[in-house]
């Protein structure tokens, strides 16, 4: 067991932190207030190699192993204070690019992965529907067989990057009588007749990533755009969730490290009753708790990366990682605000934005309660 980073991994960290601080944090308070998606930053991230980090070079990526990729993404979150941007990047990488890489045909990989890695495309993942959230497989979107393909009808909601999507990975029933075993996955391109998207929805946090709906109305999708075998949609979705839940918080772990350093600096500088507030145990204990949460989160994240790097199942570890990391980010964000006092409540400080950004994490990609159900079910309960 090796707990250290190699020189090459450390170089990725140093480079991405410097890049993110230099390029990705301009006018963030205004971007958050106005819910502006930083398209130019998206492209800069692609040029740096973020989207293509774990994708083989044959499809426009860097071909990094999973631990190096995770270290890179953690460094991105440490340097980049725009949690919406990092969430959008991670969402596309784990719920669109990874399934394309794993289940796509050679033609699909060449056609879509290269554009996604280059930052020329935005990929959305459509599973949730107005009437199906936690009970994901009760989805209503249908795909009827027609000559040479399928006709899709339905609606997907709460989809990250939906308003700007170049392609969407969408799940639909091809055999409704078979329930979850009759679901298939499809790649839908923007501009396909019958495929439309909603404007961005206003939301509490992660305001710089556009979130919206996908609408499918008699939308013909050729058979070559089905991802994986017919009826394998639920298994493809499960696999995608294993990766997404393992890693979607990688950058948020970096944000927690940044948040901790900022809070320590403030606790050392801010004086009350004639001494730095960090000297008071009620303050220092909270900071100690933040540190423990950060290191716990890192262990869960790296374990999942090691397992998936070694082609081992990680559904249990993915659920635990998602549960621990998302809850830790909320708790530590709240502690950071308490420790910054009234200053932390103001938008300019940035600490309050982090709390708003953190709350979504206990909901998306399966709520904390769903993660507990998964863990319990896998334990045979």
């Amino acid at each position, binding site marked *: 067991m090796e707990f250290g980073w190699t020189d090459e991994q450390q170089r990725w960290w140093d480079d991405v932190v410097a890049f993110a601080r230099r390029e990705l944090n301009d006018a963030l308070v205004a971007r958050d207030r106005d819910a502006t998606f930083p398209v130019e930053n998206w492209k800069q991230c692609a040029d740096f190699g973020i989207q293509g980090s774990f994708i083989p070079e044959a499809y426009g990526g860097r071909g990094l192993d999973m631990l190096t990729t995770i270290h890179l993404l953690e460094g991105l979150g440490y340097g980049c204070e725009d949690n919406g941007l990092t969430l959008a990047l991670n969402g596309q990488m784990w719920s669109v690019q990874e399934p394309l890489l*794993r*289940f796509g045909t050679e033609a699909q990989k060449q056609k879509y992965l290269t554009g996604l890695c280059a930052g020329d495309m935005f990929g959305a993942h459509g599973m949730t529907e107005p009437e199906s959230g936690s009970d994901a*497989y009760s989805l209503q979107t249908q795909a009827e067989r027609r000559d040479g393909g399928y006709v899709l009808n339905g609606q997907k909601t709460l989809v990250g990057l939906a308003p700007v999507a170049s392609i969407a990975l969408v799940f639909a029933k091809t055999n409704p009588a*078979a*329930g*979850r*075993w*009759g679901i298939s996955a499809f790649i839908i391109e923007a501009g396909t007749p019958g495929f439309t998207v909603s404007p961005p929805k206003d939301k509490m946090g992660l305001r710089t990533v556009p979130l919206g709906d996908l609408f499918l109305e008699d939308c013909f999708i050729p058979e070559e755009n089905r991802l*994986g*075998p017919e*009826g*394998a949609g*639920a*298994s*493809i979705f*499960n*696999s995608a969730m294993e990766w997404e839940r393992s890693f979607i918080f990688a950058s948020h772990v970096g944000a927690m490290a940044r948040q901790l350093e900022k809070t320590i600096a403030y606790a050392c500088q801010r004086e009350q009753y004639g001494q730095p507030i960090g000297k008071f145990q009620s303050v220092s204990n909270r900071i100690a708790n933040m540190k423990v949460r950060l290191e716990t989160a890192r262990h869960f994240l790296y374990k999942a990366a090691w397992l998936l790097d070694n*082609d081992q*199942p990680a*559904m249990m570890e993915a659920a635990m990682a998602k549960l621990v990391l998302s809850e830790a980010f909320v708790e530590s964000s709240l502690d950071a605000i308490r420790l910054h006092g009234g200053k932390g409540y103001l938008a300019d400080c940035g600490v309050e934005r982090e709390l708003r950004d953190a709350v979504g994490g206990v909901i998306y990609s399966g709520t904390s309660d769903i993660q507990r159900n*998964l863990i319990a*079910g*896998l334990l*045979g309960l």
Partner: protein
Amino acid sequence: METRETLKHFIVNDLLSGRNGADIGYDDDLLLSGVINSLEVVRLVTFAEKKFKTRIPPEDVTIEHFATIDTLATYLESRAG
């Protein structure tokens, strides 16, 4: 028959813990009738991978291969062959 018996023993004794009785036949439906749920399918995959020293790709976890003990055994034997 060894593969079928091994799968049946795991399903009856570990997954179901006697929940549906011990009378699951080799060609009884496991999925559509709800005998095993989706997480139990995951546990079945993990068990089969370890026991039969194979890797079951997610895209193969379909009703075609997992509908019954018979279909799963046939699938696993085809991978071993």
